């Protein structure tokens, strides 16, 4: 029998080494960019936190201001886009990732703070605002996905509608408190509208029928320009300036 050329083991090893380096670089790059994203989320959260604090200061100053000076669309757009990014990160970086979970918890706290503040402003100034608290869970809940679509759709039609979403299973004492205050059942999805709990999936029409008030904020929105966070901060600074002077 003829002999084969001897195997070039050195080459097999060198190629293995090169391939491994390429692989590790790929993994490293992915890891690096994911960390960048998490940093970006953290900075968004801290800026929202700052905005919230500003709003609280603004609210504290309310007594010295008239209600018409107070902006009511402070944070919703920022919070919503943050929500999109966090839910994307859950898929892209990992639902169990420690950083993602902590970002989500912080986000939930920001939502609660925003909700409480807006509720106070609404009560104090007698505005027609509707708040929806939405409880969902991530796994095994097709109805939750559907409910998510419904709420996104409603939010597009009624930009003044405030939807706060909470992961029912998120391990956080504030969320647990919300759950027990509103007596949210574990039959998800569940929505709390102006203090009342509705469990199970609700269509757009059902929500619209239950809350004819929605119509009024829809009309309001057409005439009212949107206010961005930066504008709000400027407003606050202006107002504080006026008060001080």
């Amino acid at each position, binding site marked *: 029998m003829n002999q084969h050329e001897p195997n070039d083991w050195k080459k*097999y090893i060198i190629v293995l080494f090169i391939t491994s380096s390429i692989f590790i670089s790929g993994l490293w790059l992915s890891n690096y960019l994911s960390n960048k*994203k998490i940093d970006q989320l953290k900075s968004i959260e801290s800026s929202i936190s700052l905005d919230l604090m500003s709003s609280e200061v603004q609210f504290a100053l309310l007594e010295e201001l008239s209600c018409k000076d107070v902006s009511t669309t402070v944070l919703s757009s920022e919070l919503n886009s943050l929500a999109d990014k966090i839910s994307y990160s859950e898929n892209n970086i990992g639902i169990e*990732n420690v950083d993602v979970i902590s970002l989500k918890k912080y986000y939930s706290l920001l939502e609660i703070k925003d909700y409480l503040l807006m509720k106070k402003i609404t009560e104090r100034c007698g505005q027609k605002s509707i708040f929806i608290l939405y409880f969902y869970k991530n796994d095994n809940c097709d109805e939750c996905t559907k409910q998510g679509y419904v709420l996104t759709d409603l939010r597009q039609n009624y930009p003044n509608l405030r939807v706060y979403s909470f992961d029912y299973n998120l391990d956080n004492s504030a969320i647990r408190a919300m759950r027990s205050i509103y007596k949210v059942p574990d039959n998800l999805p569940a929505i709390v509208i102006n203090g009342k709990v509705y469990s199970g999936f609700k269509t757009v029409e059902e929500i619209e029928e239950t809350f004819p008030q929605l119509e009024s904020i829809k009309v309001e929105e057409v005439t009212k320009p949107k206010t961005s966070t930066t504008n709000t901060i400027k407003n606050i600074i202006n107002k504080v300036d006026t008060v001080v002077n």
Partner: protein
Amino acid sequence: MAKNRGYVRLLYHILFFLKLLIVLKNMDNMLYYMLVMEPVYTAIFYVFSFISVYVQIFFLMTYLEKKRHIVHHPENLELLNYPTVTVAVPCYNEEATIDKTVKSLLALDYPKDKIKIFLIDDGSRDNTWNIISGFDNGENILAFKKENGGKHTALNLALEKSTAEFFGCLDSDSLVHPQALKRILSYFQNDPKTMAVAPSIIVYNPKNILQYAQNVEYDMSVYTKKMLGFMGGIHVTPGPFSIFRKKVFDDLGPYHKAHNTEDQEIALRMQENGYKIDHCPDAYVYTNTPDSVMKLYRQRIRWIYGFIKNLVDYRRLLFKKEYGTVALFTLPSGIVSIIGVIFLSVNIVANIVRFLYHKIIQIQTVGLDSVLSFNYKFDWFFVSTKAVLFLAIILYILVIISVMIGRKMAEGKSGFTFSIFYFIIIYSVVAPFWMMRAIYNAIISKESSWTFERRITK
């Protein structure tokens, strides 16, 4: 002094170990992502893409190493001597193409008294016999007619009748370049250990997108085949114009049926016996390729089916180092490519289905209007940073590099061609089907015969 050096070395080792620990600690985070995200899928994907990148780098390294050894023969190449050659052309219902095929053989730049052409009609039911018997001159062109028995029987008939030093076959749907034979024979003259030489197969006159896509594939295989040639790992001596020393058949016996891929089987049999197979990149053979997806599908089912069946027959070779590259590299990477393509496509299909499912639910829930009115704003944040994506990009870049090197070797053209996209898109969609079908057929042992395929394609 020596003692001090010992301490220094120890310290060095400790530092290295610490450094390694730090690297591993960071890796931990990385591995965490790997393990948590859809672990099984991700793990499989990593294994396949690792092996695929490995294979491509292996080729690339061989190319960089051996680039200078790729011979470009001059137009007026002269051989030291001109040995006798028999070229067998087995035909079954080839009235449309046989004329051109024979004429290309007659136009070979080779002494006429040294070459014999055997035209074997394997029981055709069309006008093939009349055409080939017209070429029979009783001297160097002989036509034979036999009962239909499959391509290998036609070739074995030619082998029995051949007395020449070299034996080759030319499929009746292919044409040879006038210099092809001389160029191939120069390899035998330069290395007495070379027992067979495969040519470069090029798509003849591509007309539609599918044929341009195949052109890219054939170009790429000119490159990979040459690299396998350098490494001694060629596993197919293709039907169109591979030339053998007659000794191969005298020693190892005639062609086998080999699940209708006798050109794979003979190469594996040669590899098993340590017979060297080389590849001549500038021996061009132009072959007619399937012009419809269905025909391509049938052709590939036969190829992959043959690969699987021959692999099973020759499984004793796998991973045995004494059989060289074919056992350690070529056959394993063939297996990985089949499973990898299927796995990847199943995954892509699953993703598409999942996406559509969610879209349908969304439309059902809130209506088509609101789904369409959703205004999407581009944000870098939503560009995926999954490692899987980077690895896929690296793999595609390596494939494109292979195509470009192959194109340069096969057609002398450099630069990028859009056909690469035809290739990537068409093959990603269709290849999984023929691979799955071939595996299915292999399991139930359903053969797609040469004659059956021809009946369909004609």
